[in-house]
């Protein structure tokens, strides 16, 4: 059994739980090759967990995670590290190595995985930094960069080895409008220019919808809906409508489970 060629990554019947809480219950999601796919859902619904399952940093209790024809849960630790060279990941925090400057951060994957001479590594790093607009920041240390710049450097590092699949974990969180605009443009541009498969996990509706070819909405351990951004915007499903239109109360209640308000107030007397 292998994944359909049309899909770079496919989760089939995946169940994952933390303690007694089921994060995913028999979930199947496929990510079309060469497209930008968004995964959206309220905070705490397991979006980052989904990314970690796709990258085999977590192992599902049940189900299969197929990446380019390999079922990840069956791979050995050593094979997993080889397989991960196909991935580039942009972490929420950027996750730059704090003891290395911008140049060395981007050069790091090239140094550990290739035998390229220093001159060539320098050229590749310059090209990657030029792509994210930070060639001028080459000598800066991570603590000298703004939040948006850190993510762009991390993006340059993520594409250093020309991966086939790029995973973005909440790329727009905590960014100002200009930085958001830059990231939106870069994600789309890199996807189209490099012909890679992009998966954007986010709860920033406008940005994610604007760059995604296909969207999934997840919640309560299930896929609540899927389709093009337009299809989801016009969905009849009340849960999807609540999320897509940002309605504060509805199927996802405003109040956390609590005893009756009146009883609670009078109970203290």
């Amino acid at each position, binding site marked *: 059994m292998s994944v359909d060629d049309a899909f770079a990554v496919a989760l089939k019947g995946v169940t994952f739980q933390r303690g007694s809480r089921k994060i995913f219950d028999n979930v199947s999601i496929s990510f079309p090759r060469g497209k930008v796919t968004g995964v959206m859902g309220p905070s705490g619904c397991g979006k980052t967990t989904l990314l970690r399952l796709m990258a085999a940093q977590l192992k599902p209790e049940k189900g299969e995670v197929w990446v380019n024809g390999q079922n990840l849960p069956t791979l050995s630790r050593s094979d997993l*590290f080889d397989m991960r060279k196909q991935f*580039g*990941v942009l*972490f929420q925090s950027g996750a*730059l190595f704090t003891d290395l400057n911008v140049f060395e951060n981007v050069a790091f994957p090239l140094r550990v995985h290739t035998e390229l001479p220093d001159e060539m590594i320098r050229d590749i790093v310059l090209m990657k930094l030029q792509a994210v607009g930070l060639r001028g920041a080459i000598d800066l240390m991570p603590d000298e960069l703004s939040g948006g710049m850190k993510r762009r450097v991390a993006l340059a590092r993520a594409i250093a080895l020309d991966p086939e699949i790029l995973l973005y974990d909440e790329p727009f969180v905590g960014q100002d409008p200009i930085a958001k605009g830059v990231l939106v443009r870069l994600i789309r541009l890199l996807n189209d220019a490099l012909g890679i498969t992009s998966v954007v996990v986010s709860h920033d509706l406008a940005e994610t919808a604007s760059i995604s070819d296909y969207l999934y909405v997840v919640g309560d351990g299930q896929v609540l809906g899927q389709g093009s951004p337009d299809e989801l915007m016009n969905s009849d499903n009340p849960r999807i409508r609540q999320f897509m239109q940002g309605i504060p109360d509805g199927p996802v209640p405003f109040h956390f489970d609590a005893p009756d308000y009146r009883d609670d107030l009078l109970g203290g007397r």
Partner: protein
Amino acid sequence: MARQSLLDRIALLGRSGLNIVQAMGRSLIFLWHVLIGRGGAGAGMHLLIKQLYSVGVLSLAIIIVSGLFIGMVLALQGYSILVDFGSEQAVGQMVALTLLRELGPVVTALLFAGRAGSALTAEIGNMKSTEQLSSLEMIGVDPLKYIIAPRLWAGFISMPLLAAIFSVVGIWGGAMVAVDWLGVYEGSYWGNMTNSVDFYDDVLNGVIKSVVFAFVVTWVAVFQGYDCEPTSEGISRATTRTVVYASLAVLGLDFILTALMFGDF
């Protein structure tokens, strides 16, 4: 109600026991992957040298200063006791045996746990909380090989050397007090020492102790960093655990090793 509470306590005790066994199991699997997993030793040589500097060389100051003062105190106390029996000439022998057999390895290990061990835990814990370890994994680099192994080996190599330096400086400090200050005859100080200190029984046993302590302290430190909860509070708790667990392990193991090496049975 009282019965319920008793049952709860028993359940809590059982859960704590399970957690301890689980943590021990995790730490053994962790150690297995660090020592046996893939990755060439040559590729990590520059990482090892960097860690030898930060773990070993930067601990030199505290080791030298502590060794000097402990040697001086030992000579002072030893002299004040031995002089009552007219045996003050044996103070060199007493200082050397105490340092080589016990205080050198044990105090170095305790100081090492406090200075380098806590720093290792905090550094690795911080890397975990800022997703640097995850990031390495996703680049296809095993953090156990790239981050943990060089630190483990650096501690393992540097601590026995630090213990040797501690003992040498302590003996020299003892000589300063006993010979230069209290007037013990220099020939007796060094002569009694060389006559009574046996290379295998005293020096080698001390080295074996410091090698065991080095392994345990560094293992505890790197594991606590790697296994900690990736929050500020989690890192703080892990750092405390490193110092407490490593110190207790050193003191407990010291008794066992002393009984095996010097016990008359």
